[in-house]
């Protein structure tokens, strides 16, 4: 007997579907996900420090024990055979292949780009490569016409400890060099000291500097520490115009834990229900194995649903993950593991 799945969305259609495009939704009062403390329109939420604070602190709390328990249960999902094969290819297509080292060179980036376009066998290409701003031009050149996008970290990654002017100009330079996507970091110091408006304004400024480039906002959840903060930072970033919210820089541990990704997926789900605007999610850091990647896909599947199960709306920020995915892919196809030297190191 096959498992009979109650199809996702079989319940109350329309409830979590977009209601209106854009941020200019009239009002949040009485809406499904929005707390009763909100009495102004969403555009007014950031009208003052006090309003922003009241909104973020009015979001429903996150109970750590319960969130961890839910993530753990989803971690027990058993993805086998055809489902595993499909999941591996989906995961590969969602990888933001990343190198963010002081020792990065043009040669290293070119090698990574080659791998990004043709990971091996008939595996799909990855979603994007992610590099430091000064190497954007190299990646753009190497990836021309491939469909693989170029993402650049910016805003004094990973700490973000510099002036807003430099963050904006660094963003502008990366975009000018051809970056399709910008991964910025928020000012965690400002966030933790309650200066939400400063964080908000920086995101708005960087978003403006992005032009047509997509903006991913890195929350660095390992430094935000509480799950309530993760939810607030997620909403803050989305309100400020983030196209994606991203867990971590990869330079701080813990990085993308399942619980944190779960909470961020709930946030984008609720944000779309409230505003009609869909925002993507990118867990990054610490995702090294196929198992980790599939657990992430399960989280997406059972939290945000099908609409996020594409590279356009969900990414996996990783470097070593790709080879493990390729290895498991080959194992599924051939029934045996090939040695590590059968997978290229780039």
């Amino acid at each position, binding site marked *: 007997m096959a*498992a*009979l799945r*109650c199809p996702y969305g079989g*319940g109350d259609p329309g409830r979590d579907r977009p209601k209106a495009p854009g941020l200019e939704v009239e009002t949040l009062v*009485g809406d499904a996900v929005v707390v009763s403390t909100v009495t102004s329109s969403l555009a007014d939420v950031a009208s003052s420090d006090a309003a922003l604070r009241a909104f973020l602190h009015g979001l429903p*709390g996150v109970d750590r024990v319960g969130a961890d328990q839910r993530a753990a249960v989803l971690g027990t999902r058993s993805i086998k055979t055809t489902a595993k094969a499909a999941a591996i290819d989906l995961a590969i297509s969602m990888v933001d292949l990343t190198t963010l080292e002081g020792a990065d060179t043009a040669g290293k980036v070119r090698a990574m780009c080659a791998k990004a376009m043709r990971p091996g066998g008939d595996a799909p290409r990855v979603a994007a490569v992610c590099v430091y701003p000064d190497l954007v031009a190299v990646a753009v050149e190497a990836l021309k016409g491939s469909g693989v996008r170029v993402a650049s970290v910016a805003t004094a990654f990973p700490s973000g400890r510099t002036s807003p002017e430099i963050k904006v100009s660094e963003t502008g330079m990366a975009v000018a060099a051809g970056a399709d996507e910008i991964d910025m970091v928020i000012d965690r110091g400002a966030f933790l000291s309650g200066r939400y408006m400063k964080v908000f304004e920086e995101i708005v400024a960087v978003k403006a500097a992005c032009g047509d480039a997509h903006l991913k906002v890195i929350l660095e959840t390992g430094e935000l520490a509480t799950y309530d903060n993760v939810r607030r930072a997620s909403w803050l970033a989305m309100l400020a115009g983030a196209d994606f919210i991203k867990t971590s820089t990869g330079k701080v541990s813990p990085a993308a834990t399942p619980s944190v990704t779960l909470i961020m997926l709930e946030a984008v789900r609720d944000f779309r229900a409230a505003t009609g605007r869909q925002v993507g999610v990118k867990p990054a850091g610490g995702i090294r194995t196929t198992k980790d990647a599939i657990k992430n896909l399960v989280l997406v599947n059972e939290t945000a649903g099908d609409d996020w199960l594409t590279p356009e709306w969900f990414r996996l920020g990783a470097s070593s993950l790709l080879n493990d995915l390729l290895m498991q892919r080959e194992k599924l196809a051939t029934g045996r593991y090939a040695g590590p030297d059968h997978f290229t190191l780039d």
Partner: protein
Amino acid sequence: MAIFEYAPAPESRDVVDLQPSYGLFIDGEFVDGSGPAFKTINPATEETLAEVATATADDVDRAVRAARKAFGGWSGLPGAERAKYLFRIARIIQERSRELAVLESLDNGKPIREARDVDVPLVAAHFFYYAGWADKLAHAGFGTRPLGVAGQVIPWNFPLLMLAWKIAPALACGNTVVLKPAETTPLTALLFADICRQADLPAGVVNIVTGAGETGAAVVAHPDVNKVAFTGSTEVGRLIARTVAGTGKKLTLELGGKAANIVFDDAAIDQAVEGIVNGIFFNQGHVCCAGSRLLVQESVQEELLDALKRRLTTLRLGDPLDKNTDIGAINSAAQLAKIRELSDLGESEGARRWSPECELPSKGFWFPPTVFTQVAQSHRIATEEIFGPVLSVLTFRTPAEAVEKANNTPYGLSAGIWTEKGSRILWMADRLRAGVVWANTFNKFDPASPFGGYKESGYGREGGLHGLEAYLDV
């Protein structure tokens, strides 16, 4: 079609060595029963799993005599020696956990994920916990004298876990036992008998007699039983209390429930939704402490119900042995009939019924997760224990009203409170007449925590230090 479909991931049945027929476990041996054998089936497929002997009053008498014979030696052992046996049993349970989990799922219909991750680990934990008490009884405050022979009758919802709740403290305190598992789920108890042999437990210390109500009645009524422990329906609990009255037998009853799961407007919504799901759909709602009445503050009713319904559409119902199944089969045709009857009543009394779209398997006993809204306190679905995956949603306006409604039931086994405000949790817990009050969680069990009811949910406590009292001559 969904983008990410999970392929079937069935747990292998091969770990279980099912016999075509099982006898009674008396005095360390499997023996034939005198009554007609009955079949135990897999409720997910209706296939017969095995034939099981029926113990008659004579068989029960043999079992009680074996237990009595073993009592002297067992109670005479130093506590530390009894502990060794219990520790050994606990370890064997862990070693054979897959076998136990698969068999439990087969015989009961519960999802393998729950049998594997909840039932069996808790069973081992109970034996470990009470093994630790065996040589420390003098410090528990109930004396160290065991009662004698314990007659124990357990239900079908958590067959092995209820066995552990009964047997572990009984043995730790030096009693011997005659246990009757439910007629629809006898198999893991019989496997446990095998574990007792494997652990070299002295003959007669644990005896397992199978059969239906008559067998249970014979255990309860046997004149040489010193202690009766029962978990099951309030109706049968009353009969037992009548039988035992005036006999000097010590009695503990763990009966029905109609728990309120109370959600305030400042609750962590996503976790509250998980708690509601876990409260009523865990084990298909076959849980005496299930959160079958959702009391939600009117100011968040709409958003909470929307979130709950959205969540319910992701529940996976089907093959209990599939590792990704969330909702398994209803344990028996009789139980399914009862759930259907009460649910139909709910509709005819005016409540609004909702279930996620989901196809039920054609064979076996199945009921979809069901939510009733616009339920009034006077509706039968709000007062009677359904013991199935059926949630009744009621609303309240103030904390005082929540307490009033929560307590307005003849039962009092458990309750749940969902709020981010600590002081309100304490205020509520003080006023709720329920044996267990969970705060920001639900259906959380631990061997160190006592469990038991107020009012018609029974008396006595199982688990924890308090659980020792029921098995000692205080």
